[in-house]
């Protein structure tokens, strides 16, 4: 029902998430933001079971900020991803597992851009592009076909538009808008919402 997508370029990561907050058959909100800012250059995109998403994502968010306060410097995206994975794995076999699917996108001064795919079983993988949700079935092959490691920012946005077009054409649900953000060495930038009216 929900959709997340991330595309990594040579010096940026482009991420997008749909804006629907639904409950059974009703869309309660059309402008719901599924991205959580972990630090100046790390975004966590979180979908899954109703309350779990916000609880887990805010827990990770506050802990990453606490790390910065205690130590004076921020966690790198790789460290944040592994920290998230560890927490998710710890809760997996507890009485209260979190059923969330995540994308973590960030930019590191030394390592460059990074996109991490994590699912509810806390499997973590760094990938050049990734997607979550039923929409992923429709769009991963488009990404496979057109992705190149040396995409420019505009080309990445065009690729994202292709994916959104395909969803509008073939996906049974009406995902009418997507929040789009770009992370590079300057930080997190908000781009125009898709699809363009």
């Amino acid at each position: 029902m929900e959709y997340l997508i991330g595309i990594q370029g040579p010096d940026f990561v482009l991420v997008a998430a749909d804006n629907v907050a639904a409950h059974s058959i009703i869309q309660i909100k059309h402008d719901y933001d599924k991205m959580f800012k972990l630090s100046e250059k790390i975004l966590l995109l979180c979908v899954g079971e109703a309350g779990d998403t916000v609880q887990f994502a805010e827990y990770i968010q506050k802990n990453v900020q606490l790390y910065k306060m205690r130590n004076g410097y921020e966690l790198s995206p790789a460290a944040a991803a592994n920290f998230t994975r560890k927490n998710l794995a710890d809760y997996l076999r507890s009485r209260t597992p979190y059923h969330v699917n995540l994308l973590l996108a960030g930019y590191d001064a030394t390592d460059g851009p990074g996109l991490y795919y994590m699912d509810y079983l806390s499997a973590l993988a760094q990938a050049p592009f990734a997607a979550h949700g039923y929409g992923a079935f429709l769009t991963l092959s488009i990404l496979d076909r057109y992705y190149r490691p040396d995409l420019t920012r505009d080309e990445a946005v065009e690729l994202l538009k292709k994916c959104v077009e395909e969803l509008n054409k073939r996906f049974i649900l009406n995902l009418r808008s997507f929040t789009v953000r770009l992370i590079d060495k300057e930080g997190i930038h908000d781009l125009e919402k898709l699809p363009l009216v």
Partner: protein
Amino acid sequence: MALQDVCGFQEIALHHPASLSISSDDTTLSTYPGGKMKTTGGQPFEKDDGSPLHLVLPPQRSLVRSRGRHFSSSLTTIPCPFTLSHGTTTLGFTFQGGVIAAADTRASCAGLVACPVAQKIIPIHSHMVVTTSGSGADCMLWERILAREIRLYQLRHGRRLSVTGAAKLLSFMLHPFKGTEVCVAATLCGWDGGDTRSEWDNMRKEDESAFSPLLESEPSASASRASSELAIDISTSNTETSVTSQQADGISKEVGGTASQDGSDQILAASCRSGPRVCYVCSDGLLLKGELISVGSGSPYAYSILDDGWKWSMSVEEAVALAREAVYRATHRDAYSGNNVDLFHITERGWCRRRREDLKDEYHRERRREKEIVQQQEREKEKRENVQKKKTGN
């Protein structure tokens, strides 16, 4: 005993030795002054032969079976005597004149109307009400807990907790019960204000000077200072409430003082610390802030009416009429909603309550109107036919 027979209660004389232990690790037992511990093993409803404090446990169920969460090991899943079903229509929305909260009054239990005059909108404090949906008992309990926590916050910090803050608090309190049978879907509707003391001073000052345009269009607002309940007798026509632009201007002056463009007013209200707010909290853990929220089995029907008529720049009369119509249409179609409609209007001066209205009257009024329209059409048709006859005759 007769009651015993009706309940199928089996009297079993027991003299269990103290060494008898229960199979699970739950340890709820009763002890009585004799010092011996009596346990209720696998058998339900065992009768003690003397002790007045004997606690009876329901039959133990395996904890592993349910995927639900248990916040402590001594919490067992008690088998439900009937399937819980949640029928209601509640709604809340913000607009330039404050917040409207409306709900039906039917408390249903599967196919039975348990109570036709339930109250589903409960005031929490002078500037916030909560609409309830889900299991009635759970809602009642959690709203009392929420009211207590908010009052404590107010006493400790000298200001009222904002609507989003209260929603977050409720969401966190409900989180440990996720996966259990607790079912609460509440919409918190309120007006975020500032410091309670300074706000009262401001209200007094404003009353003296600039509030006459508001008082003309809202005759009830003058009395709604604190949490006093007031029944307004706004005219009950639910269509064609004509609102003069003067009244609308007067109200918007009271609220924002900004230009009367829909978008800018909305953005201002959303980003301001004070202003109208609606938040949806669910025992699943979902928490949503929005402008227009409807909850319950009748909510799809209500959404379609609300989406059609809602705009930020509505007047109070239009908003009340819209809310009323939405609940009425939902109660018409949904079997689990019905009876009356309750309506609350919250402004920065507090909430005020409209008199409860029986929707059966509205239904009959509508049928009469339809009949009149049909009759009028028939009369016009006859007239046209008569005119034609005269023409052909001539």
